């Protein structure tokens, strides 16, 4: 895959350039890097992954059905704005699901894949594709069902919890030290003006990764040497619901995003 190899080299070169620069607003810097990449490679990694996700979306599963037979919250096959309204409670599973877990529900319940056959890389690619239909939409997450309210409350508590050998917690940095810098990046105001919920799923050019918010939350814990919650687990969903609800009304600038 010469294109991918070439793109990776380009990305690495840009990453080195980026690391050499200090004190630059990471959002402005990401825009600049994106423009550079577009000019040199002619295509963005986000576009490639969305394309890959589209193919997977239209692939038939063991049951002979594609993902167009699945309901992502707004009715069967409706993708326009669907990701901006997740996480939410689904009557068919009796659970609150986010984009990642709803894709798994779709693959296993509708398409007939066995849970063990579901690859993380495919879930992320499909998440990129579905999210791409919500660019320009406002976040609209509700707390209508008791389960939604329960998970929101748990997410809020987890956000403010101090735990582990380093006494850390999300709010310790993302509320108290917003704008301050530990290492290279300033702490984002994830509940306020930075609207961090709208930055994921995203492609991170500095290390060539494709991440959903699930990966981002796990990395946050990992960075501060705190044990990480498993993918698709309730604590991640709870934190997501809390973050998404706190960012209600924020318009998605671009999904999937292109970040540092």
């Amino acid at each position, binding site marked *: 895959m010469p294109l991918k190899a070439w793109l990776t080299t380009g990305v690495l070169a840009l990453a080195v350039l980026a690391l050499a620069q*200090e004190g630059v607003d990471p959002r402005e810097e990401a825009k600049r890097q994106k423009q550079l990449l577009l000019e040199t490679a002619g295509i963005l990694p986000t576009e490639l992954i969305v394309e890959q996700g589209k193919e997977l979306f239209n692939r038939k599963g063991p049951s002979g059905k594609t993902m167009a037979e699945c309901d992502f919250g707004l009715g069967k096959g409706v993708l326009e704005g669907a990701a901006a309204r997740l996480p939410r409670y689904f009557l068919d599973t009796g659970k609150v699901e986010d984009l990642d877990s709803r894709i798994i529900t779709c693959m296993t319940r509708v398409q007939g894949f066995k849970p063990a056959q579901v690859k993380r890389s495919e879930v992320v690619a499909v998440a990129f594709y579905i999210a791409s239909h919500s660019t320009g939409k406002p976040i609209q997450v509700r707390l209508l069902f008791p389960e939604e309210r329960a998970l929101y409350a*748990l997410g809020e*508590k*987890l956000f*403010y*919890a*101090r*735990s*582990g*050998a*380093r*006494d*850390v*917690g999300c*709010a*310790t*940095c993302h*509320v*108290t*030290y917003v704008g*301050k*810098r*530990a*290492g290279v990046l300033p*702490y984002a105001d994830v509940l306020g003006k930075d609207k961090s919920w709208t930055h994921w799923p995203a492609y991170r050019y500095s290390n060539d990764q494709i991440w959903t918010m699930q990966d981002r939350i796990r990395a946050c*814990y990992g960075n501060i040497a*705190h*044990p*990480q*919650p*498993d993918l698709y*687990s*309730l*604590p*991640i969903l*709870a934190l997501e619901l809390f973050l998404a609800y706190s960012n209600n009304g924020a318009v998605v600038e671009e999904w999937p995003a292109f970040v540092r």
Partner: protein
Amino acid sequence: MKKALLTLLALSLLAWGLAQRYFQDPELERIKSGGKAYAEVFVSQRPDQALCSIHRNRLPADLLPKFLEEQRSLIKYPQNGKLMGDWKKGGAIFNNLQKANCFSCHFGSPVHLGGDVGPSLEKYGVKRGQSEAVQRYTYEVIYNAWAYFPCTVMYRFGAQGLLTPEEIADVVAYLLDPESEFNTKPAVGSK
């Protein structure tokens, strides 16, 4: 009557126990879906961590005296009584991302560009001297920052067992010793 009193005592003990806790059992059950290691830190959350969580890192004034006293009681000192150890060893601890990672939050290291979450420590020893009081204060803040700044983001290196008393004394030396590169070399990014 005696039985009633005992029940009352048990209930009040239970209420006291619950008041020290941040997460309740049904919440912990749900957190367990996050995996064993993740759940464990919440199941075994310390009462002081719970207090900081409940009050979102700003303790009410009436809780402060007891809190500070408890944190102070956690501080232990090196066997040999020396609060300043080997500054070279201290530098290796200070500037190691996996070890103390001090530079990520504090400016002043001649090895790594520092962050600004904590106060600048630039030329710490030059500015403060090496009096016993300065040594003690520096040692105690590193050992247990919560004894001075309740619920601060700074790790409680000694109290949480992240560093030994001897290692903390090495870091104190790195900050204070006039010979230390921390005081003789310019900080990365210094103007």
